[in-house]
């Protein structure tokens, strides 16, 4: 493959791709907003949130974004409020920027200079022009040193070997005289420094590790949380070497965050139990806010004490008002927690984002995993979350102290070609008990209510894990939809929508129509041809082709050259409909389903193919390798059109071609109508795109039609149902892959009684043209057969065969024959 990549790209009707124009961009807005604790402004009207290199200022009142501040070039590590309307931010390179909160403009940019340090871990601002910065420790990894920097340039080291999380450093206790106390956590001890008075203290408890610390703003009171879930309140910890401690113990899991209210009367604490606990200092009373959705990372109190913001691991910031209710939330794209217990038995692809990226044609969004048991729909055009839906409808269970309790996880998702139906597969398994549950759910989109409604819930659709599921494409709502699942119980099953209506109610539900197997082999991959007339299921190294309506086995394809189990399989699109591209552990090859021959093979790949994604808008296909190389190729030939070198060290998980709403004016053919989106194992989104194209972030020149996703309102009814456009309409294509041409029409003519037939003048032209197509594909098949003979005779050399012996002209005429309709034939006959 590397050799191929170096060769010049070749293609009969492709313009030479200028590789320098194609770049890989990281999508910034998709990064999480909960990596750093948010900061309230002094008037508690706005909240500042760092997400990657950007800072967002949100209104607390409405949870809407007010400003987006983009000047930093590396990730922001800390935010602070300097004055009433000045925000101070610092990034990992030590660059600090002062912003005006009211209009979102930059005031001042200055670097923090600490001799010999290039990387910073966290940033705090106690006031008076002093900064607290944590830098990587010299000798121990994962530990930090804390510096106090006066006026950007005069650093003084406070502590060494402290924990590097933002929650392990705290300052406060001005005691009414403006003194400053800084505390930091080491694994088993708390180090204290009174900067004004120059007192040093180190407090230790038992063997429980500390996780977080907070200081009272006025009094000498410190709160620490540890991994056993215990909260300790330390009194007068600066002067006494054995201070008085109060124990507050409710949490069973480690305390992730503690926070004093601004008056210092209450403490808020939270952890992985998804419960926020509100303690009253000096009393045993506590209030709970349970089932907050996902585990709490940070708790921040507003200066006016009216609300509390909690950062959650599902990438959301929730605002809790004084009555202990969640009243607003800022929700970002949810990162999927890797499924525990899967990592040792399954590849990483199964544990991190197992659904991959699934395109939804209705909303033009992408479906993928959210938190356990949830599914989210993300709009890449607007770069926003459309919704997050609860598929499992179960209580999210939290772990016990020494016990991992799994939740139901969505493993597979499929969307019907019209977007009306959504099929989800959720699995819950308890590895230790050897017990597992599996549910296949069918959801129907309700346009009036603008949400998905559960239609059918199938318990244990297969006896063992389902490996793939796919809707039959190409029908565009003309027939009853059909879903195919394959599982490790060696079976494939075909599910159809059954009309279950009787005189009392109208109802449709899904039920299993056919279950089949093939020589007791494990099915590993599944693909439908673009028109839905042919279904391919790979059983280890053998590809079987089925007719999806009658479930007849048409052909089996296997070859001595390809004997590894097939892992991925996709049909070509557009005029490459006849090619079936398969990927095994070390090889990539294509079958021609009409001539039933092996067309080409690329062997000895550097690393295995992770994703094989066809572009729905062109004939091209992308192969994403495990080492993050990407090859774009046309299934008719093994020569890649474009090769993207290794992006970084991360491993790609999923990829998808996302159709553009506006085609590119110029550029390589495969980028004109769509762009390639790749997700890595850190769940960062990358986009392979042309330099000239408008990025995902930029405003679109024409608004996207969201006709279907709109809820029904009188105003939506006023919108035009149809918009005239010059863009090519999506028409269902039917490829002729088997059978005699015109057979059907002759049959129908003979079977219909003469009295029921429409007048001859009306059906004559239709009937004749049906017969005329007959000659087109036949000629092609003959030619291809001759090609194929040469293929199999060729010796296997160089790990790579290319059977394109035909010259240029013949190939184009071939394609012409295939793609043009009967109109063209009628003309030549005349």
């Amino acid at each position: 493959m590397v050799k191929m990549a170096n060769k010049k790209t070749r293609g009969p009707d492709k313009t030479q791709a200028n590789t320098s124009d194609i770049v890989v961009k990281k999508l910034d807005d998709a990064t999480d907003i909960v990596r750093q604790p948010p900061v309230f402004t002094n008037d508690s009207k706005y909240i500042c949130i760092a997400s990657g290199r950007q800072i967002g200022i949100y209104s607390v009142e409405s949870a809407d974004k007010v400003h987006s501040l983009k000047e930093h070039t590396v990730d922001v590590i800390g935010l602070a409020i300097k004055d009433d309307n000045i925000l101070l931010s610092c990034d990992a390179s030590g660059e600090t920027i002062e912003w005006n909160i009211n209009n979102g403009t930059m005031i001042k940019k200055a670097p923090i200079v600490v001799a010999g340090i290039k990387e910073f871990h966290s940033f705090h601002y106690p006031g008076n022009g002093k900064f607290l910065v944590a830098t990587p420790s010299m000798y121990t990894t994962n530990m930090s040193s804390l510096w106090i920097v006066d006026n950007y340039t005069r650093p003084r080291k406070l502590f060494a070997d402290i924990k590097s999380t933002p929650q392990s450093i705290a300052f406060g206790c001005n005691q009414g005289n403006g003194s400053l106390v800084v505390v930091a956590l080491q694994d088993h001890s708390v180090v204290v420094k009174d900067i004004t008075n120059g007192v040093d203290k180190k407090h230790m408890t038992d063997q429980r590790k500390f996780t977080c610390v907070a200081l009272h703003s006025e009094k000498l009171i410190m709160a620490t949380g540890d991994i056993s879930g215990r909260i300790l309140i330390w009194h007068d910890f600066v002067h006494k070497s054995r201070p008085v401690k109060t124990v507050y113990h409710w949490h069973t899991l480690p305390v992730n965050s503690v926070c004093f209210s601004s008056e210092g009367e209450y403490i808020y604490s939270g952890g992985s139990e998804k419960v926020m606990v509100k303690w009253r200092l000096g009393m045993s009373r506590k209030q709970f806010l349970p089932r907050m959705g996902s585990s709490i990372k940070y708790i921040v109190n507003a200066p006016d004490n009216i609300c509390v913001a909690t950062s959650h691991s599902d990438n959301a910031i929730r605002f809790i008002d004084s009555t202990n209710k969640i009243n607003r939330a800022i929700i970002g794209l949810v990162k999927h927690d890797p499924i525990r217990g899967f990592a040792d038995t399954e590849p990483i692809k199964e544990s991190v984002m197992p659904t991959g990226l699934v395109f939804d044609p209705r909303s033009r969004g992408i479906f993928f995993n959210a938190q356990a048991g949830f599914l989210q729909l993300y709009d890449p055009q607007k770069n926003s979350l459309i919704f997050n839906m609860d598929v499992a409808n179960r209580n999210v269970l939290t772990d016990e102290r020494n016990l991992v309790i799994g939740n139901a996880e969505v493993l597979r998702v499929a969307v019907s070609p019209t977007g009306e139906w959504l099929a989800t597969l959720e699995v819950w398994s308890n590895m230790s008990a050897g017990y597992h549950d599996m549910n296949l759910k069918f959801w129907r989109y309700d346009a009036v209510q603008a949400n998905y409604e559960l239609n059918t819930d199938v318990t244990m659709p297969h006896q063992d894990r389902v490996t793939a599921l796919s809707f039959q494409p190409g029908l565009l709502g003309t027939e009853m939809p059909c879903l195919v699942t394959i599982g490790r119980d060696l079976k494939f099953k075909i599910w159809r929508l059954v009309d279950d209506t009787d005189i009392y109610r109208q109802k449709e539900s899904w039920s299993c129509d056919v279950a089949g197997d093939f020589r007791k082999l494990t099915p590993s991959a599944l693909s439908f041809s673009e028109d839905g007339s042919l279904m391919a299921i790979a059983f280890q190294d053998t590809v079987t082709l089925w007719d999806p309506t009658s479930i007849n086995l048409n052909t089996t394809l296997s070859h001595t050259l390809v004997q590894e189990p097939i892992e991925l399989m996709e049909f070509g699109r557009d005029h490459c409909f006849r090619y079936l591209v398969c990927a095994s552990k070390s090889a990539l090859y294509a079958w021609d389903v009409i001539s039933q021959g092996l067309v080409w093979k690329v062997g000895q790949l550097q690393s295995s193919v992770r994703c094989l994604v066809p572009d729905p808008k062109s004939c091209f296909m992308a192969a994403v390798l495990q080492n993050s190389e990407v090859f774009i190729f046309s299934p008719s030939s093994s020569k890649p059109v474009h090769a993207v070198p290794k992006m970084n060290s991360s491993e790609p998980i999923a990829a998808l071609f996302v159709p553009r709403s506006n085609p590119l004016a110029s550029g390589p053919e495969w980028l004109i109508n769509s762009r390639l989106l790749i997700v890595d194992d850190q769940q960062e989104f990358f986009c392979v795109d042309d330099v000239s194209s408008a990025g995902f972030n930029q405003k679109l020149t024409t608004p996207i039609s969201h006709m279907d996703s709109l809820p029904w309102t009188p105003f939506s009814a006023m919108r035009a149902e149809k918009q005239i456009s010059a863009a090519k309409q999506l028409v269902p294509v039917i490829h002729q892959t088997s059978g005699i041409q015109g057979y059907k029409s002759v049959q129908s003519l003979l079977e219909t009684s003469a009295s029921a037939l429409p007048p001859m003048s009306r059906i004559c032209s239709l009937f004749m043209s049906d017969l005329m197509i007959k000659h087109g594909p036949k000629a092609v098949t003959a030619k291809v057969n001759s090609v194929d003979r040469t293929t199999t005779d060729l010796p296997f050399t160089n790990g790579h065969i290319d059977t394109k012996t035909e010259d240029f002209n013949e190939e184009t005429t071939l394609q012409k024959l295939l793609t043009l309709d009967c109109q063209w034939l009628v003309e030549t006959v005349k």
Partner: protein
Amino acid sequence: MASFKKTQIRSLPKIGQKVTADTLYWRKLNFPVTVKEFGPIDYIDVMPIEPYFIAVSSAAKVQIYNPITHQVHRHFTRFKEAAYGASIRSDGKLVIAGCDEGHVKLFDIGSKSLLRIFKGHKGPVHRCKFTTDNVHVVSFSDDKSVALWDLPSETEIIKFSEHSDYVRAGCVSNISSDLFLSGSFDHTVKLYDARSPTGSTISVDHGSPVESVLMYPSNSIFVSVGGTELRVWDMLAGGRLLARVSQHHKTITCLHLASDGKRLVTGGLDRHAKIYDVQSYQVVHTLDFPSPVLSLGITPDDFTVVAGMANGLISMQHRQTQAEARALNPKQSLKVQKKSQTAYRFRLNADFRSVNRTFNPATDVEVATKTDTNFVSRYDMFLRKFQYSKALDTVLTPYIRKKKPAITVGVMHELIRRNGLKSALAGRDDSSLSSILTFLARNINDPSHANIIIQVANTLLEIYESSSLTPQSEKLFLQLQEHVNREVEYVKHLMEIEGMLHILLASTTTQARRGSPNVVQGSPVKPMLPSAAAASNATMIYNVG
């Protein structure tokens, strides 16, 4: 704050007859009151106004029954031979009957006196009807003719002799006094208009001797029965066949409308009466009788169903009144009462967005329905508080564990998911252990719950294998073992039978292949569907059974 989600209870549907609104409605008929007559019951007619007297013609007399007291209110015996087809006028004052000697006799119900005799037919008259204007009478006779008579003058107005066999069925329009239908043993049904004396306006072929005909109140559709078939005809389209239904396996003899014209009832010699939906002609319910049904009568309020049978039995069934239902089953009715009250209370805050799910009994597919109340059950309350033992205790009460095992299994499932099964099962005393063990023994061979029950049984054995048990619990453990052994034995037998069947099937397929060496080549032939034009032209045909 997300609300606590209820434990999902999965229950599989029961195989068998579906309980629909119609089955419930028709099941409310009481045990029949039977009266024995001397001959077969030829015809039953119901007075269209209260008190819904029933005219029964059998042998040589016509009797008028009171449907409430089941007593004979009047009887008319002035027939020399058999009397046929007694019919009451819409005002309930007069009754008319045909007889073997070919006369049509008119009686006054109040005074029992014979008022008129219409003479003119040469054969027995089996059916006669009043027209809607109440001053004319139509008679259908075995002399192959249909005649219209004037009541006051006792004269024949018009006579149609178009049939070529006995005319044994007939009915009149309830809108126009000039329209009437006749059905004959020559397989035809004819529609006559008294204003056009030249002949019938519509004539359709039923395909077998017509036993009964009926015109819908709208007068646009008429129905004929005969043989084992029911045929529906469109009158406005000149007698186009709309539907053909064949649900009886012997001759259908009678036809009646019920439920305010929404249901159609047919009775047949196969001792059944079938109730159809008039829109789809699907059978919604079946009534069974001890003898072949010859005639049917249903009061307009569906309160009484009367069937006359070939052995002379008349069966009268009443619908249960509220008071009767309460007297029969006081407990249940109390529950119903309570339910209606609670339903009202919960309707105020019912979650209308909750998903509706229903059952599909075809496969193992469960399409379940979520209950729509916001009611939090006790086990959910305990699960929410992580009190697993108490949650299990609440679902092991005798009522739930016997009547609703799906709930017990659902809670056990949730406990497995929460990894709390062990702590819930551990440390139990004798009585609570015995209730768990009896539950497990009872349900371990239920395939829909088996995987969860087995998991629970394994955990239970693991916990109590080393502890000393009382003889009582030991006995229950042994009982459980016996259940498992029996199930294993049973499955073994089934697998043996399956193996035998496989051999049989395999041998038949090989023989079939040997018989026809030419397996069809080329693309498979698909059955052709009619085109849109053809479909609209074709008539709807039901061929069931």
